[in-house]
């Protein structure tokens, strides 16, 4: 056994000689530098973080099992793939053939429509216990319909039989005639109604959604425009580099920045609720909510754009003897125009997204339609609205990004 003078007694005897530069000992040496107090603090932070997450899980009722709740999810998911986009017209053809019971004639009774359909009842004078045959031609193929027997003066209006046309649009049906106790001699009418599927056209839901998304885009546009009109001039007063000179300037700067911060901190939906109380339900309330929200956010972004300009040109124009307004107009404005435009387009795009939910609180736009369909459990219609939002918002997102990339 190798013995080393001065080796600590705690070293297990028989172990391999410790290499002074081995990684194990280096790690141990470095780890030992961390004080026990720091370790304790770290452990405490970890425990508190876990505690908060567990509490959060319980408070928010997280239940992963509910996500897989098929009976509730199925109709919604199914509706998502079958949105109500198109609907088909029903073309109804009605023909009326009178038959005379007790007249003794054997010939058929017929009626024909101007659009070419004919309906034939044979015989035209049914006898008790005899047969009655119905023939129709010229109808839409594979259409369904019914034949009723009617006699208003006797109070008779009953379903006689149902018919379905074949591939050529014709049908044939046989039946028997009852005796005089049911149908005494008189004139009866066989009334044929054939319901044929007509032209396919865009559904009312789709048209409604389209008009509402248009309203939403315009709502966002109006809100953005008024937001720009208010925030763009204000933003110059909220730029430190333009207002830093005097105490009055500083005061104005802080007040403007405070206005921006306050208006920005209130969520659009809450603003919507407030505006609905003030001006009533509708798009106008939505526009006002967007305006207030935009003033804060746009103002901040504009002010920051102004603070980011090159000071040189401003200095040069001030040196020509230009007054303050002219200096800002010729030295600052040309520098910030591209950023202002880019920020504005982005913000309009953002406002469209905000406007889609404003309808939930009565602020107009497409959200109103969505909540209406959801409340009526009309999931197919709701799906149409949802898809409309997704597609339009995505397209706008791409469009605004494309425009902005050309500006800067």
């Amino acid at each position: 056994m190798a013995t080393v003078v001065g080796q600590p007694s705690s070293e297990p005897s028989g172990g391999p000689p410790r290499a002074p530069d081995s990684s194990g000992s280096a790690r141990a040496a470095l780890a030992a530098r961390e004080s026990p107090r720091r370790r304790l603090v770290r452990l405490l932070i970890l425990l508190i973080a876990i505690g908060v997450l567990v509490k959060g899980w319980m408070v928010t009722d997280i239940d992963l099992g509910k996500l897989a709740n098929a009976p509730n999810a199925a109709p919604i998911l199914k509706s998502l793939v079958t949105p109500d986009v198109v609907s088909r017209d029903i073309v109804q053809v009605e023909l009326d053939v009178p038959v005379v019971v007790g007249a003794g004639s054997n010939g058929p009774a017929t009626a024909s429509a101007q659009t070419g359909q004919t309906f034939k009842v044979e015989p035209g004078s049914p006898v008790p216990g005899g047969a009655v045959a119905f023939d129709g031609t010229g109808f839409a193929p594979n259409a369904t319909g019914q034949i009723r027997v009617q006699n208003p003066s006797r109070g008779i209006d009953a379903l006689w039989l149902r018919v379905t046309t074949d591939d050529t649009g014709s049908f044939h049906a046989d039946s028997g005639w009852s005796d005089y106790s049911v149908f005494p001699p008189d004139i009866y009418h066989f009334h044929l109604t054939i319901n044929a599927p007509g032209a396919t056209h865009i559904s009312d839901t789709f048209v409604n959604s389209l008009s509402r998304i248009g309203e939403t885009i315009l709502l966002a546009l109006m809100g953005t425009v008024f937001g720009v009109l208010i925030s763009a001039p204000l933003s110059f007063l909220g730029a430190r580099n333009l207002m830093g000179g005097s105490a009055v300037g500083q005061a104005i700067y802080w007040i403007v920045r405070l206005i921006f911060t306050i208006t920005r901190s209130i969520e659009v939906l809450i603003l919507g609720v407030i505006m609905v109380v003030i001006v009533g339900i509708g798009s106008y309330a939505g526009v006002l909510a967007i305006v207030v929200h935009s003033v804060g956010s746009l103002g901040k972004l504009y002010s920051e754009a102004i603070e980011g300009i090159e000071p040189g040109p401003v200095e040069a124009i001030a040196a020509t003897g230009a007054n303050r307004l002219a200096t800002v107009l010729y030295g600052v404005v040309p520098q910030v125009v591209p950023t202002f435009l880019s920020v504005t387009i982005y913000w309009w795009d953002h406002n469209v997204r905000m406007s889609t939910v404003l309808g939930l609180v009565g602020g107009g736009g497409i959200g109103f339609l969505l909540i209406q369909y959801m409340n009526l459990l009309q999931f197919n219609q709701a799906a149409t609205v949802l898809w409309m939002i997704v597609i339009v918002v995505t397209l706008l997102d791409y469009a605004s990004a494309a425009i902005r990339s050309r500006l800067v």
Partner: protein
Amino acid sequence: MLRIEHLVKDYAGGVRALEDVSLEVRDGEFLVLIGLSGSGKSTLLRCINRLIEPTSGRITLDQDDITAARGDELRRIRRGIGMIFQQFNLVKRSTVLTNVLTGRLGYVSQWQALLAHFGEEDYRRALSNLERVGLRERVHQRADRLSGGQQQRVAIARALMQEPKIMLADEPVASLDPATSHSVLKYLQQINREGMTVICSLHFLSLARTYGTRVIALKQGRLMFDGLPSDIDERRFQAIYGEEAVEVEIE
């Protein structure tokens, strides 16, 4: 005549940039300011048109007391003092014409400025000043499409629009290559020979010798030297720039 008396400038934080500077600049001089970076050249130039507020002292231009002027009076004095800068300070996204026309902003009314409505006379003046710096055909180009030397010449044209009595130039060629530097300084020299006073800070002593009719040197905010360019010998050079300094020539 420009007269500077006991000029002091203290920056916030206690840095003294100018220490009791007094000098007179006679009409028609090409005065070159030399000195190390931070010696106070830019501060001195900016005190003359009050882009920087002096702490104390007095500056007068002919009968006008620049340091006492306020508001409209200050702007009237400023428009009589042209200035060009190291970074040219053109509005890059605006056209050459717009940049040159901004030189008239000290003359036009608020409304004319707001509506960008400059008079026929101003347009004619802009074209003739661009002609003077050899950029007549660039009038409709965006300023940032021009080379550095061309941009500085546009800046000179802009300053000329003010019809100034005196032209300040703060390191006008420090961002330019040697050949372009000469071209820009030749325009300043020509303007000077037509009678305008020029005060120009420069890094290179060789340029100062070529173009200056008089040189003053600043060191840590104090006036170190005031004389003819040819009077700066080895000893004076080292007094201005420090023991370690070696003079480099610019061709």
